[in-house]
């Protein structure tokens, strides 16, 4: 068993060399880099917004390109396996079919994570050079990857003035002691019509409670339509477990509501290197997931079908939020939670990243999504891989 594991790791290393030296992946990577390099956006009016847009587009293009590259690489590798040949046969005899199967998959994943890291680095360098501000990229990263924080998942609405919204509960883990926590809150003002009041701002009250400790704060803030509030939380590190935030409408006469994602807990800005590593890792892990799908499906279905299925998977997973909203709201409570968790484990959603945080307390929120992506890759690909092996045997 240990010998097989060693063999699988050795084959993973061989697979990495093969993929990286073959030229297809480096060329695709070069294409993505050039695309990012030539991505032209107006910067003269509002450099901050332009930077954020640049990052949004670069990461979106990177993700799309990498998924395509991943699918093609997965298909290529699977085609080689199906074709056989001396190398494949020798490897199969030496380390066993199972170790060969998983060794190839591991190598493919590792290559795509590396490419993701490389792409993240390329984007950061581009941003730094373009905007002449290598240090200042931290804020745009946080903006572009707004899923970095923890967001409310349910839609809440004040039925009448004077009522309280249901408490929003965030599971923060204990996080990095050096990170400041920040709360971003952007509920929608409903029944808009009184422009004077809008300009003056609408008072709302926030009650923030740590469910695992004695922390409790009440703040009254002024809310302006379309302007998210950012509130620093002076929450001691020891109490950063589960945090409940209740929103009150103290009787302004306005109806206030917020939809999924309007309330966000953001981890504070961290180093540029960490941000690069994180963004690249996430891109790479998701790409590796799609590569696994293509790799495992090939042999079960034709190459074109495997490619289409992978791309459909990518499309479906990127719109997972919509699927979940439409599908799960019709299910009763417990069933909904179970179904959502199962689907959440299988389908990587670029906007959800709470699984790792739920499982591994103490992981800082920003890194939780990396863990989440890794977890989905591991669980999803192992599951699909086993299905492919079972069907084959």
């Amino acid at each position, binding site marked *: 068993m240990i*010998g097989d594991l060693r*063999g699988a790791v050795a084959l993973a290393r061989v697979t990495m*060399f093969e993929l990286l030296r073959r030229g297809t992946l480096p060329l695709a990577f070069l294409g993505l880099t050039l695309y990012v390099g030539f991505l032209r956006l107006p910067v003269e009016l509002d450099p901050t917004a332009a930077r954020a847009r640049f990052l949004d587009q670069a990461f979106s293009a990177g993700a799309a390109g990498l998924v395509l590259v991943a699918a093609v690489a997965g298909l290529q590798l699977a085609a080689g396996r199906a074709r056989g*040949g*001396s190398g494949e046969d*020798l*490897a*199969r005899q030496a*380390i066993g079919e199972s170790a060969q199967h998983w060794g190839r998959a591991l190598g493919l994943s590792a290559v795509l994570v590396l490419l993701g890291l490389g792409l993240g680095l390329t984007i950061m360098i581009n941003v730094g050079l373009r905007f002449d501000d290598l240090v200042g990229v931290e804020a745009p990263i946080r903006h572009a990857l707004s899923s970095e924080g923890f967001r409310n998942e349910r839609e809440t609405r004040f039925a009448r003035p004077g009522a309280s919204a249901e408490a929003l509960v965030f599971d923060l883990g204990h996080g990095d002691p050096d990170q400041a926590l920040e709360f971003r809150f952007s509920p929608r003002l409903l029944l808009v019509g009184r422009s004077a009041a809008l300009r003056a701002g609408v008072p709302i009250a926030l009650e923030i409670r740590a469910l695992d400790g004695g922390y409790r704060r009440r703040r009254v803030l002024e809310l302006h339509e379309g302007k998210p509030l950012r509130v620093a939380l002076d929450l001691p590190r020891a109490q950063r477990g589960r945090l409940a935030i209740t929103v009150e409408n103290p009787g302004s006469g306005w109806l206030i509501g917020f939809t999924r994602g309007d309330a966000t807990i953001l981890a504070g800005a961290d180093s540029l290197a960490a941000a690069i590593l994180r963004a690249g890792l996430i891109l790479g892990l998701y790409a590796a997931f799609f590569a696994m799908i293509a790799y495992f499906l090939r042999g079960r279905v034709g190459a074109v079908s495997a490619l289409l299925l992978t791309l459909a998977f990518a499309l479906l997973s990127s719109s997972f939020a919509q699927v979940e909203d439409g599908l799960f709201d019709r299910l009763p409570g417990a069933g909904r939670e179970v179904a959502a968790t199962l689907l959440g484990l299988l389908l990587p959603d670029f906007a959800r990243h709470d699984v790792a945080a739920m499982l591994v307390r103490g992981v800082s929120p920003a890194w939780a999504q990396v863990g989440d992506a890794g977890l989905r890759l591991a669980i999803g690909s192992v599951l699909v891989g086993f299905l492919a092996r079972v069907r084959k045997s």
Partner: protein
Amino acid sequence: MDVDSDLALVVSGVSRRYRDDFRRAPQAALDAVDLTLGAGEAMMLAGLNGAGKSTFLRLVAGIERPDEGQITVLGKGPRHPSSRRRLAYLPDGAELFPFLDVRETLAFFAAARGLGRRAARAESDRLIEVFGMEPWARKRTVSFSTGMRRRLALASALIGAPDFLLLDEPASGLDPEAARLFLEVLRQEKARGATILMASHHLAHVEGLCDQIAVLARGRLAFRGAVQELARKLGRYEVDLSLPAGAAEGVIGADLAGSTVGEPRLSERALEDFLIAESRGS
């Protein structure tokens, strides 16, 4: 003592069928083959193209599973980890990992056979020297000639001193110098105690190595025994004849005084005729 403990290979009633088109019935590549091979013996597996030699080797190597029958290699099933580690398989064809260099390729197979880093390095150095690959040690195999690829493939199979070698036409496509090198290396492996099962069409490729021969024809075992036994059965021998200088012309019926005659051995042409006859079922 268990009789089977002296046997490196026991194959009983093995059949393998392939379906190349789902509308047609499966074709038998191997049909109820029984074969044994003693530990430390070397056997030539002869047969025309399509006789089932490669399929047989793939089954013994554990790369494919038989449809019927059982195979025991070194006391276990071919897919058992302990058998796999002690067995080496050299497939037909020479394409290994085209984007790895010689050292990287050998390092992979060393790791696959469970060798530590230091032992792997020493073993790689030894095999690179044995096969004369020093100038190409850091070159990727994609640019190698067929002969060089076959050298590397055999070196990869031999890494870690396996107890059982399965070789699928290792010398095919090699120049005479490389073919002799292969034969010499394999003789040394046999002298070390390794069991060898080697598919080949040519007696010259197994000369001085294989004393046993199994002939496959149309997926069935047509003969199994000593090479000399087959020669006696066929009644056709060949010898090397060394003549004095100037005596080469008009040798038939000439006085052979001063000439030397080698050991009689199975005639290559006789074996070819036998393979063709068996494949036609005549």
